[in-house]
């Protein structure tokens, strides 16, 4: 257990995430981290909650439902093929590669764009946009309600 005091002015990490930084991450979020299990490359690993990784054959029923729901939500996020017309989206900040013509992309509600494969891998762990830290599902649910 680590328990050190955080001084207020060390929290400003959001500055480092670029000019379009989203809401500041609360410093009071308490950590709930268990030891990461060893990697087993042969069995697919799922992440029913942030920081929880479990091989597919060790998921509880509840976790299986959660993952199914998550996959459903991810599938509702728009995708598209990079055609070079977008001036804003140039690079995927997960793999740090520039988008190439024909790349499959996924668009998040916050307008950040990633390779479909890159962001889907992350969304299975966390529904937070890696760039702006905006919760993806909140925006998605609001879209449902208004439409």
């Amino acid at each position, binding site marked *: 257990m680590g328990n050190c*005091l955080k001084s207020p002015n060390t929290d400003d990490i959001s500055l480092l995430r670029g000019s379009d930084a989203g809401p500041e991450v609360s410093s*009071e979020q308490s950590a709930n981290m268990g030891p990461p299990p060893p990697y087993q490359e042969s069995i697919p690993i799922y992440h029913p909650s942030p920081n929880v990784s479990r091989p597919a054959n060790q998921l509880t029923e509840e976790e299986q439902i959660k993952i199914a729901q998550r996959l459903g939500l991810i599938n509702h996020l728009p995708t598209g093929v990079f055609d070079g017309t977008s001036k804003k989206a140039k690079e995927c900040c997960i793999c740090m590669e520039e988008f190439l013509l024909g790349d499959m992309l996924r668009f998040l509600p916050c307008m950040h764009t990633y390779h479909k494969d890159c962001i889907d891998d992350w969304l299975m762990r966390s529904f937070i946009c890696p760039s702006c830290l905006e919760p993806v599902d909140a925006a998605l649910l609001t879209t449902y309600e208004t439409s």
Partner: protein
Amino acid sequence: MASMEKRLQKELLALTKDPPVGVKVNTDAITKNLAEWTVDLEGAPGTVFEGENFQLQFKFGSRYPFDSPQVMFIGPNIPLHPHVYSNGHICLSILTDDWSPALSVQSVCLSVVSMLSSCKEKKRPPDNALYVKTCSKNPKKTRWWYHDDSV
């Protein structure tokens, strides 16, 4: 596996070509093993760590950047800082809970530098003795409690 190496190559290239002030990657060691980096950090001028040099170790798993790297201070000089344990472990939320794959070696280094720079008084965390005695070798296995001293 391949995507992790590709991204690390990119980061390495960018960091050696255009390193931030006070941050220097030890490239000789990395060419042997891309999954383990050592970065030299300089205490910023005008701060309590002015003139001091530190070594930060990064270990990357095959799931980087989806998993955060394991980051700790190594070497003879571990900064005397309220968030740095004497065994080199660092209490910094972006290294565990607040990690995002958009973060990078560079942004972690900058966060650590800014954490050091904002330090007013050189001292160890209050629970240093107990923590160092009982913790895992891997700082990512620690259940960190990030909290504000105003709480």
